[in-house]
């Protein structure tokens, strides 16, 4: 099947995903061979930065979603007061 762009082909997207996961694994494995010069005790744990980046991002998304429950409004919310101005 001919697609408009090579990125439209699901097979290529799958390959990209595979490549991404390989790079992810490599950055963690590299930690075993390279001295990462930990500045703080906590940083010397194996794969600390990877786990920390992943977990804090999940927390930020969950935190944002929680805030959104209270503060999300349709994007026409302010349209009324702008017509008055």
């Amino acid at each position, binding site marked *: 099947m001919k697609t408009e762009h090579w990125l439209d082909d699901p097979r290529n997207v799958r390959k990209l995903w595979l490549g991404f996961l390989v790079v992810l694994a490599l950055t963690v494995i590299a930690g075993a061979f390279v001295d990462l010069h930990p*500045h703080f005790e906590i940083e010397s744990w194996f794969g600390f930065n990877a786990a920390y980046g992943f977990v804090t991002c999940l927390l930020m998304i969950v935190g944002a979603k929680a805030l959104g429950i209270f503060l999300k*409004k349709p994007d026409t919310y302010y349209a009324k007061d702008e017509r008055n101005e």
Partner: protein
Amino acid sequence: MSSVVLHPALILIAGALLLPLLRGNARNIAVLSAPTFALIALWLLPEGKLWQVPWLDYSLAPLAVDKLSRLFATIFLLMAAVGGLFALRQQSRLEVPAAFLYAGSAVGVVLAGDLVTVFLFWEFMAVGSTLVLWSAGTSTARAASMRYAMIHLAGGVILFAGVAGQIAATGDANFHAMQADSIATWLILIGFLINAGAPPLAAWLPDAYPEASWSGTVFLSAFTTKTAVYVLLRGFPGTEILIWVGIFMIFYGIVYALLENDMRRILAYSIVNQVGFMVVGIGIGTEMALNGAAAHAFAHIIYKALLLMSAGAVLAATNRRKCSELGGLFHSMPITTLCGTIGALAISSFPLTSGFVSKSMVTQAAIDGQLQTVWLFLAAASAGVFLHAGIKFPWFVFFQKDSGLRPADPPASMRWAMIFFAFLCIALGVYPDSLYALLPYTVNYVPYTTAHIITQLQLLLFSGLAFFVMLDHLKRTPTITLDVDWLWRVAGPALSRMGGTTLAALRLAVTAPLASVATHLRSRIERESRHDGLLHRNWPTGTMATWVMILLLTYLVLDFSAL
């Protein structure tokens, strides 16, 4: 006062005043040459207080140059030039002159050696930026420009009160490092922080900037907040509270940007986030941290303008701004996609981009100061930047689902502006020494170590993994998230309306009985004025004498009782 020396800010402002008179190619040439001349003039200036003006009992220095002010003036003028190139095809004839007044005033602030000059240019900046916003010509932009002007005028009043108090207390108008230890210095600090987008008023920024035109937002993103960073750097280095103000700004920006649907509001929230990093650096206050804050401001102006140019190109081509209505644009806008992605990588501090060599100096300063909590916040924030701007912006605008839109890349002037800034994002990342040489203190820092590259990649790539794992929860919906601007857009007007009705009811309650008393009185007076009435009657002299006697007696009693 030496008159041979040209003031770069005045060159740009003169250009702004000249532009409305020109048309066609002459105007285009003037747009590009005014900031270029100003930049040349800036680099011909020696260091020191070049203009000294006596004013009242004070000595003012409207033109003072050192490494820090030259760094900021350089990036402001570069931004004005490339922004001018990007905006060459802007139809509004007001926008670019307003932007040059705005940029010139920002240069005026950073080249000011005294607080009076700082304040003057500070207010011109507010005028210029309001006009940029206003020139977009839509009703939403006009409403936003009024709200924006209110906040900045209020900030200006606070700053002025602080400046007046500080000069009265010290007798010294010079602008140098201060301690936040008196009401006056606190007012100055608050005035500065309002422009930086600090809490609690940060919402003015995402409320206003995204309402400007496709090119207007590019100008707006650069000057106000970074001038605030400059004055904080010079005025309040090492003020500890700034660390926590900055950390709040960082996470506020991330959380709101994650919830946002409008592509330029995402980027506006991320300005607050990025300025937060600079404010943390100023709060830490070591030479490494201050260098980091200054370098990050320089790098940030470039990649943020680049991101907003790519968003502006999309807006100009599609007239759409919501992520939920965009997507798949990489098919037909390859250059915009590439430039936007480079900007996104730079803001995320990927190795080989400008963000990597600047932001990491702030992080390094936290490490050097053994500030583990601050460092943990900064590391999480670095991951969060990739999450909310680095992936989210390009993913939802250029990739994700195919919206079916096939707009072409923008015209040459816009393309070259983007390509030039994309080039700078990479060039500064590859040759950081060119940036480091401009910093206020000697740089003793090597950004490219194997350890640093690997830890940074771990942090960022796993943040990317989190994005795709949680993608279902990040799908954009046509919503906005209420921010503190709700207080002055909804709560304030509602309160004043409520106050108005209460007042009206109160007035009625008081005036209705009074009115009936008055009517009664008038009819009584009218009745008594008729010719048989009390006021028209002849009174016997005896009555008068009696009244006079009563009066005199009263005096007597009062006189005695007073003894």
